[in-house]
């Protein structure tokens, strides 16, 4: 160890009471609240609520694929609406909102030692604009024609032309909802960034931040720079749809009639969409990387291996994620040299990602691994992310991607890498921080049951799906019909996948039951049930009170990963514990 601080312990800083927001009524305490912890729970509940809807939509998709023609309510139009809404809700309204709005709001102030976000009012507005965006999205079910069925990528020209479900009002509401989501997110994102930059307590240098904060911080930077591309695309398409401009619309003949569009470029939309779309993968993945680092370190009772390299890898991944978007467009007719560039940059991004995987594995190596529920989910993530990542290497190569593009292989790949893997981290994070949020433990047995059904079930869904893709089963098809190259066994496999999907979806009831039951009947957790070293576990009250830290802000003396330190009394040393030698000197 290298001592770099002062000889004596540092007196804590006091913050003037007037700087804090104080709720004056029930409404301002629980509804229009400016406390980041309440906003986090609001974000999480809304995101999970709308996520359950997306889960049910995925059941509908699976029922159609396994039993085509059996369910009369699943028409070709409604099938595409299910697919579109499922994808958009899961990626934007669930995962982005939950990781950044949910985990970000709860953890950033606590982990950096701040009392709250720096702009609490704007933070509150962020949630309400997000909720409005969600409501507008859901309103599309109640307009003539229903929600859009253009696919989650909303590619023009078909997205706004007659013949695509939801062409009347659905697409307009979808675009309006996305625009609002981005405005709301920008308000929240400003808070996350500035709180990390300005709100850190004394001693909390950037290189002492837990990797969770690094992940959320970097993902927020990414989101703030990538979402404008989606914003621009949505605004322009909204004008194309409502006012008849032709930003993305070329000259078209529909049913023998010349449409009024001319001169627009559908490819321009694809560029804008994927300039946002690929960083979006890392907007979801980077917080997951950060959270899983903290889960593994805490539950393996070992310091994170290669902390510095982990930070650098997060930053490098973020930078590289802006120059790989073209790999989503290999079949758009791009110049082969362009394809070569994007294939190369895509493969390069595997390097920092692999560094992270190795470091997680090396953290586990000879660790005192506690197979708690959060640890199970963290390990599940590790395996799933590697599997999903490896198929990403396949698809990153132009020559492999072209035949596999638009097949179920792609569906299997992205669900593994940015669906299942981050969701496992979400669950792991909830099991891990639930005791801090509520003061109670979640039921261990139910948690294990939930993990094993979800983890094994996910593999039963997505492993066979890779095979379907290999034999050429296309994605986005309402019905395969009599297709020469698809053997009958593919239909059997589809039924198997659907049964697994229904079971995995239903198993989430175990999680929700556990969540609600533990809230009232769970075993009291105490302030730090996992014996974790990071700052959020050192609050004077559990759940943390208003202002997080009582009268005195904590002072940080070390990084967040002092586990199993040789010679230490306990197997963890909290970040705010002064160095032992210095503490004794100070007492003299």
């Amino acid at each position, binding site marked *: 160890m290298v001592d*770099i601080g002062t000889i004596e312990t*540092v007196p804590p800083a006091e913050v003037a009471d007037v700087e804090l927001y104080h709720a004056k009524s029930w409404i301002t305490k629980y509804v229009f609240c400016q406390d980041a912890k309440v906003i986090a729970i609001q974000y999480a509940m809304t995101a999970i609520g709308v996520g359950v809807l997306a889960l049910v939509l995925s059941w509908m998709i699976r029922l159609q694929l396994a039993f085509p023609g059996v369910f009369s309510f699943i028409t070709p139009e409604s099938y595409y609406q299910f697919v579109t809404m499922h994808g958009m809700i899961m990626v934007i309204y669930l995962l982005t909102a939950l990781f950044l709005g949910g985990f970000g709001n709860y953890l950033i102030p606590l982990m950096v030692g701040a009392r709250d976000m720096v702009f609490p009012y704007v933070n509150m507005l962020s949630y309400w604009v997000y909720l409005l965006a969600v409501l507008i999205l859901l309103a599309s079910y109640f307009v003539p024609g229903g929600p859009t069925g253009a696919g989650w990528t909303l590619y023009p020209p078909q997205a706004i032309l007659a013949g695509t479900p939801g062409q009347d009002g659905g697409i307009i509401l979808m675009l309006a909802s996305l625009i609002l989501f981005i405005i709301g997110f920008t308000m929240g994102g400003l808070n996350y960034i500035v709180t990390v930059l*300005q709100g850190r307590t004394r001693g909390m240098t950037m290189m002492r931040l837990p990797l969770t904060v690094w992940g959320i911080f970097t993902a927020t930077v990414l989101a*703030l720079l990538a979402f404008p591309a989606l914003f621009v695309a949505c605004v322009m398409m909204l*004008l194309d749809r409502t*006012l008849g*401009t032709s*930003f993305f619309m070329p000259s078209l003949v529909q049913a023998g009639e010349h449409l009024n569009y001319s*001169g627009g*470029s559908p490819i321009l939309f694809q560029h804008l969409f994927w300039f946002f779309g690929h960083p979006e993968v890392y907007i979801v993945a980077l917080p997951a990387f950060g959270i899983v680092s903290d889960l593994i370190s805490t539950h393996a009772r070992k310091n994170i291996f290669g902390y510095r390299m982990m930070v650098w890898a997060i930053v490098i991944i973020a930078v590289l994620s802006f120059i790989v978007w073209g790999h989503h467009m290999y079949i758009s007719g791009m110049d082969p040299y362009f394809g070569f560039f994007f294939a190369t940059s895509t493969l390069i991004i595997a390097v920092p990602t692999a560094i992270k995987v190795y470091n997680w594995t090396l953290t586990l190596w000879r660790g005192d691994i506690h197979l708690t529920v959060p640890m199970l989910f963290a390990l599940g993530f590790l395996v799933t992310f590697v599997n999903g990542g490896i198929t990403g290497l396949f698809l990153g190569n132009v020559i492999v991607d072209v035949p596999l593009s638009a097949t179920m292989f792609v569906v299997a790949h992205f669900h593994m890498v940015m669906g299942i893997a981050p969701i496992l981290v979400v669950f792991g994070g909830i099991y891990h921080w639930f005791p801090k949020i509520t003061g109670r433990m979640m039921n261990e047995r139910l948690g294990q049951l939930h993990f094993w059904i979800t983890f094994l079930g996910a593999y039963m869904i997505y492993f066979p799906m890779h095979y379907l893709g290999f034999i050429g089963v296309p994605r986005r098809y309402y019905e395969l019909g009599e297709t020469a190259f698809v053997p009958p066994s593919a239909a059997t496999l589809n039924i198997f996948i659907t049964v697994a999907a229904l079971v995995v979806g239903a198993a989430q009831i175990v999680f929700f039951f556990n969540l609600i039951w533990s809230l009232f009947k769970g075993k009291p957790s105490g302030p730090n049930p996992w014996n974790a070293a990071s700052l959020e576990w050192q609050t004077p009250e559990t759940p943390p009170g208003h202002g997080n830290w009582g009268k005195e802000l904590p002072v940080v003396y070390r990084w967040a990963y002092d586990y199993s330190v040789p010679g230490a009394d306990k197997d963890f040393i909290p970040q705010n514990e002064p160095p032992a030698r210095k503490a004794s000197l100070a007492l003299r």
Partner: protein
Amino acid sequence: MNITFLFLGVLAAVAIWWLYQQRITAKPWLETGAILDHGAPSLPAAKVGLGVLLAVIGMLFALFFSAYVTRTSVPEPNVVDLTPLPAPKLLWLNTGALIFSSGALQWAQIAARRGRLEGTTMGLLAGGALTFLFLAGQLIAWRQMVAAGYFLTTSPASSFFYLIIGVHGLHLLGGLVALTRTTGKALGGYPMRELRLSVELCTIYWHFLLLVWLVFFSLLLLSGPVVLDKGIVSLICSFF
């Protein structure tokens, strides 16, 4: 996407400089003890927040400009009309109004730093009035384009013209809300200590939107001559 990557490059340079300040080569596992300087900027949080917001707004406009340049410069088959627009000469006058508006706010900021309330108030009022003049001028420019037969849907180039001017104007209108509040504080006799930061934030925001406008105006000039003029406005514009 050149403009977007140029902008991202500038942001990356700032990020690298900032990361360098944060001792990212430190080995935290070897360091225990209090570090009193934790690397947080000494700037007020509001100013840092504005900086982040401007990065986001800058990215938004960089993407609009990239899309505009892409659509107006790349010839494609079956594309009806991508010819550059004959932008109204009035835009020169509007540009002047925005430059003076930005200058007036700079003046207000200097006065605020020196503790001169009267000068600050005058600067804020002048800045606001000139901004209104700019926005009114932009609306007239739109009408001139309509009168000349360039409608929103005429071609992608004309659509971009209306869209980008509209989005820029909306950002200025948002800024005017903040400027009105700041001017209200100045007129209400708020302590100069509290006023100074608000004035500074408004000034930075205005300078930034001026820069955005100058970039777009330059793109318009580079892609086509400013020739359209009508009536009295053309008389005024003939001086430029």
